[in-house]
Every structure is written in structure tokens, then in C-alpha cells.
């Protein structure tokens, strides 16, 4: 009893501590990420249009001035993104303030170089005051963007922690837990060995559910978890549950967010297999398409008068986690067609260190 009381608080504190450790609130965005790049390009272009609108009140002049300004601003932005993209890994390792200083210096250098280049082509008003105006604009814009990404990061971090908590509370249906325990109990007397295996599978599943679920894991590990989960389910559903695995050309080092497939399988069993007395097949298709992993999962939609509740939750949860991990680089789509419900996930092929 004593030991039990002592171990409890540390179990509670640990995950919270690791959240704040692993997701430093102050950090620059990943400049290699497509979503980050798009956001920066859109914001910069938008601000340029706005700045020109303040200067010019006639529509034609505004358009002309904007075109000229964007022709200048976009190359600067793209060159900066290339440099920052190369430096991202290093930038995120060093101190946040040093990183900001580095970004500002890079921006000033790129702007100065571009301005000099333009002056060679079109000798215009090449006084120092003009250059200083550009510098001022650049520094303000760079800081505003960094501030924006910092705020966005802060806004999303609690969601990350919450998603992890949801893994514990909402992902595994209590219904599944108690039915599985019941099935294991039924095996105890007649088939103690099968009961042993089932309990091992069950504890493996809960170990993953209760662990830190924010780091990517090898895809093979997730697939193993799925197999263990399906073994538990076939214990009680017996031949009603059929699974068709199709896994093609899968690289060993592919990394995925943990619990990206298992909750979808649980959904498929709950909505596609359990409500029907007849056997049904869940199919899982995973393939690599150059730099993308494509996972498709489908289950039959039984003809039943009562729609099962609680479908949206698990799906929304996975969509949100994919967005947190990959932003615009992952897609998540569902559709109902020909008596089957299909979930399709496309995510970038991330190589892990083995």
C-alpha cells in the first residue's frame, strides 16, 4: 500500500514534465515544412499588397506598384526560405534568441544583396536612406513572422498535450476493454495458454496507449500493435472478423505517429463487424509512393437500423494529430461507397534512424 501511494504522484508528474521538455514553447518553425513555407509566402505577399494599398489609392497604380514590389519581395522570400531550410536543424538546436538574430541577419543580407543586384539592372534612387527603409521593413516583417509562428506554436502545444490525454480517455472504448477482459476470463479454465497470450497482447496495447505518444515510431511497431489488437478482437468475434492485409514495398525505416492505425481498426470493428451477425472483412492497404506513404483502411457498413455513435471522435482525433505532426503535408480523407467505409491517409515518408 505504501509503495503504491509513493509511486502514484511520480506517474502523474512524469508525463506532464515530458510534455514541457519535448515541446519547447520557444522555437522557430521548421522551414522545410510545406505548410510553413506556404504560410510565409502568403503572409509576405499579403503584407506587400497591403503596404502598397496604403501608398497608392488608385486601383491601377496600386496593381502596378504591387506587381513591382512582389517581383522584388518573392525572390527575396524564396532565397531566404532556401537558406533557412538548410539551416533549420541547426537553428532549432541553438538558443532561441541566437536563432532569431541569425534569421534577421540572413534576411538583411539577402535583402541587401537583392537590392544591390536590382540597382545594377535599374539604376534608380540608390541612396542609403532607401536601403535603410528596406532594412527596417525586413526586420519588422521577419520579427512579425517569427512572432506569429511562436504564437501558433504556443496555441497548438496544449492541443498536443490534449491529444495525448485523449489517447487515454477516448481512444480505447471501455466497451472494448470489458468485453476483452470477459473473453480472457472465459478462456481461463479451458485454455489457460490462450488466456495468457491474450493478456500479454492486452497489456502491450495499454502500455502503448499510456506512453508518450508524440514521437514518431517505426511503422512496423504500429503494425505489430494492430496485429495484437486484432488478435484480441478475434478472440471474441471469432470467424466474424476477417482481415485482409496488403502491404507493398514497405521501407523498414518508415516512421509514423503512434496509434495512427490502431484506433481506425477499432472503429472498423465497432462499426463494421460487431453490428452484423455475418462475417465481414476489414482491409488494410499500405504502400509507398516515392516520398509518400499511403494507407487505406476499409470496413463493411452493415445494414442496421441503428447508427452507432462515437464515430467522429476517433477520426477527428487522428486528423488533428496528423496536422500537428505534418501540417499540410499529410492528408486524411474518408468516404462511404459501395457498402464500405474507407479511410485514406497520405503522409510524408519520414526515415527513422535505425
Amino acid at each position, binding site marked *: 500500500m505504501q509503495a503504491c501511494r509513493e509511486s502514484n504522484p511520480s506517474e502523474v508528474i512524469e508525463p506532464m514534465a515530458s510534455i514541457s521538455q519535448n515541446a519547447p514553447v520557444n522555437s522557430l518553425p521548421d522551414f522545410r515544412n510545406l505548410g510553413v513555407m506556404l504560410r510565409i509566402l502568403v503572409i509576405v505577399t499579403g503584407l506587400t499588397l497591403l503596404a502598397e494599398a496604403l501608398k497608392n489609392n488608385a486601383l491601377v497604380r496600386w496593381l502596378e506598384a504591387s506587381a513591382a514590389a512582389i517581383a522584388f519581395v518573392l525572390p527575396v522570400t524564396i532565397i531566404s526560405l532556401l537558406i533557412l531550410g538548410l539551416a533549420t536543424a541547426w537553428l532549432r538546436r541553438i538558443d532561441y534568441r541566437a536563432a532569431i538574430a541569425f534569421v534577421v541577419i540572413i534576411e538583411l543580407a539577402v535583402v541587401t544583396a537583392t537590392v544591390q543586384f536590382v540597382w545594377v539592372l535599374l539604376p534608380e534612387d540608390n541612396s542609403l536612406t532607401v536601403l535603410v527603409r528596406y532594412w527596417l521593413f525586413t526586420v519588422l516583417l521577419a520579427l512579425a513572422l517569427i512572432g506569429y509562428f511562436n504564437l501558433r506554436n504556443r496555441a497548438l502545444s496544449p492541443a498536443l498535450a490534449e491529444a495525448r490525454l485523449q489517447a487515454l480517455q477516448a481512444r480505447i472504448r471501455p466497451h472494448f476493454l470489458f*468485453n476483452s477482459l*470477459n473473453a480472457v476470463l472465459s478462456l481461463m479454465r479451458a485454455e489457460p495458454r490462450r488466456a495468457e497470450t491474450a493478456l500479454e497482447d492486452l497489456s502491450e496495447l495499454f502500455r502503448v496507449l499510456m506512453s508518450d505518444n508524440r514521437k514518431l515510431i517505426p511503422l512496423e511497431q504500429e503494425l505489430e500493435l494492430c496485429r495484437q489488437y486484432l488478435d484480441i478482437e478475434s478472440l471474441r468475434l471469432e470467424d466474424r472478423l476477417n482481415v485482409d492485409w496488403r502491404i507493398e514495398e514497405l521501407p523498414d525505416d518508415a516512421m509514423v505517429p503512434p496509434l495512427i492505425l490502431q484506433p481506425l481498426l477499432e472503429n472498423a470493428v465497432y462499426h463494421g463487424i460487431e*453490428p452484423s451477425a455475418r462475417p465481414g472483412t476489414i482491409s488494410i492497404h499500405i504502400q509507398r509512393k516515392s516520398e509518400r506513404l499511403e494507407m487505406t483502411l476499409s470496413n463493411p457498413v452493415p445494414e442496421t437500423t441503428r447508427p452507432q455513435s462515437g464515430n467522429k471522435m476517433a477520426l477527428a482525433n487522428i486528423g488533428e494529430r496528423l496536422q500537428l505532426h505534418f501540417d499540410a503535408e499529410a492528408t486524411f480523407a474518408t468516404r462511404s461507397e459501395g457498402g464500405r467505409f474507407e479511410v485514406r491517409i497520405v503522409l510524408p515518408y519520414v526515415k527513422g534512424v535505425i
Partner: protein
Amino acid sequence: MSGGKLRIAITDDEAPARNRIKNLLEDVSEMLPIELVGEADNGRALLELVEEHPADVVLLDIRMPEMDGLEAARHLQKLEDPPHVVFTTAYDDYAVSAFELHAIDYLVKPIRLRRLHDALSRVRSITRIPLDVLNEMAPDARTHLSIQERGKVQLVPVAEILYLRAELKYVTIRTAQRELLLEESLSSLEEEFGDRFVRIHRNCLVAREYIEAFEKESQPGAEARWVIRVRGVNEKLPVSRRQQSIVRQLGKKAC
């Protein structure tokens, strides 16, 4: 009750869950005179089972394919001497709170020997669940209608019903094969099965999927009337003036 032994039937769609209860019943039999009359894997199978082998108690799982436990319990009440129902459930917030509210016996899975023993030993002293409570608890439309016939329960799958027609204090159920009389009101049936049936007349509900055609029929010496031809039977049902627009819209959608 044969020889004073408590006759028990088990219903659960999962074989391991049934095995678990059988194991526990073996243990209970050392303390109580009980007898297992059979097991079923859904509500409809249970109704067939208890007709052949009458039971004093049925252990009834709630979530099952084909026909769930709550619906099976409603049909069981049509028996002359319905068995006592003890619901079993793994986890079902809403059902459990309803059970508490109406003092209905239930067991949570995994079931404990002690709880099963207690439930079975007091079962004879407990009054049966009133039908209206069961009706109120089940939120979904039934999959079957049931009729009592010579002490037996006849089940009619709702999917096979062509139309329902009110006649005095009964409702006639028409399927492709037969006609049966049901002691329920047409308006409550309309409320329950509104998705499936459309009212074409003050006294008649027709299954949308069995409407074959909507046509005008001339009558000698009277004004022409609209009728519906029903698929599967050679019958025409009159459509009242008030319902014509609704039925016509339905016809357009079908075409």
C-alpha cells in the same frame, strides 16, 4: 417450473461470453438448483429457443446483431408466462442508468459469481419489467413486430411489411405472404417507423420501398380516385385527398 429447478437461457453474440456464463452457472449450481435450457446468439434466436424450451430466467446481452437485448425483452413480454429478464452488459452508460432508474436487474460483464448467484436467487421474488418501461428505454425502432398466437410469439421482420392498416381496435400487418393482427395504434407505429412508412390514408401506412405505382383509377358513377399499387401483391390502396401531394412527391423521387 420443472422440479423446482430454475430454468435458465443464455443470450450473447460472443461465444466466449456465453462460455464464461456457463462456467459460472456450473459454480452456481452447487449452491442453487438451476438448469441451463439453452443458449442463443441473438434476440431472435432466443425467442425461438424459449418457445421450444421454456425458461424461468433469461440472461440477455444488450448489444447484439440482428435483434438486440432490449428489443428481445419487449417481444418476450408477449409470451403467456414470460421469463424474468436479467440484462448483461459490458459497458453502456445510458442503459445502466435506465436500469437503475426502474430497478431492473442487470449484471456488468465480466460477471462475478457472487453477483450472478444473488441475481438468480432473488429472481422469483422480483416483479417483471413493465412493457411500457421497456418501450421507453429502447430508443431505436424495432427490427420486428411481434404477435401473440396460441401462446407463442410470431415475429414479423419490419423489412418484410408491405403496409399497415388500422381496422377497429387492431392494425393489420400485410406481408407478401400473410396478414396478421397487431394490437397497437397506427399513430404510434407511424411515430416509430416514420422513416420506412408513409401515411397514404387516415387508416393506412405503406412501406416506401414497396410502392410500385401511383395512379388514377376511374370508378363508374363516381369521381376518379388516386390509388397506390403495392409491389408483391395484387392490391390497390386508396390515397386520401389530403395525402396526395406527399405521395406524389415520393413518386417523383422514386422516378
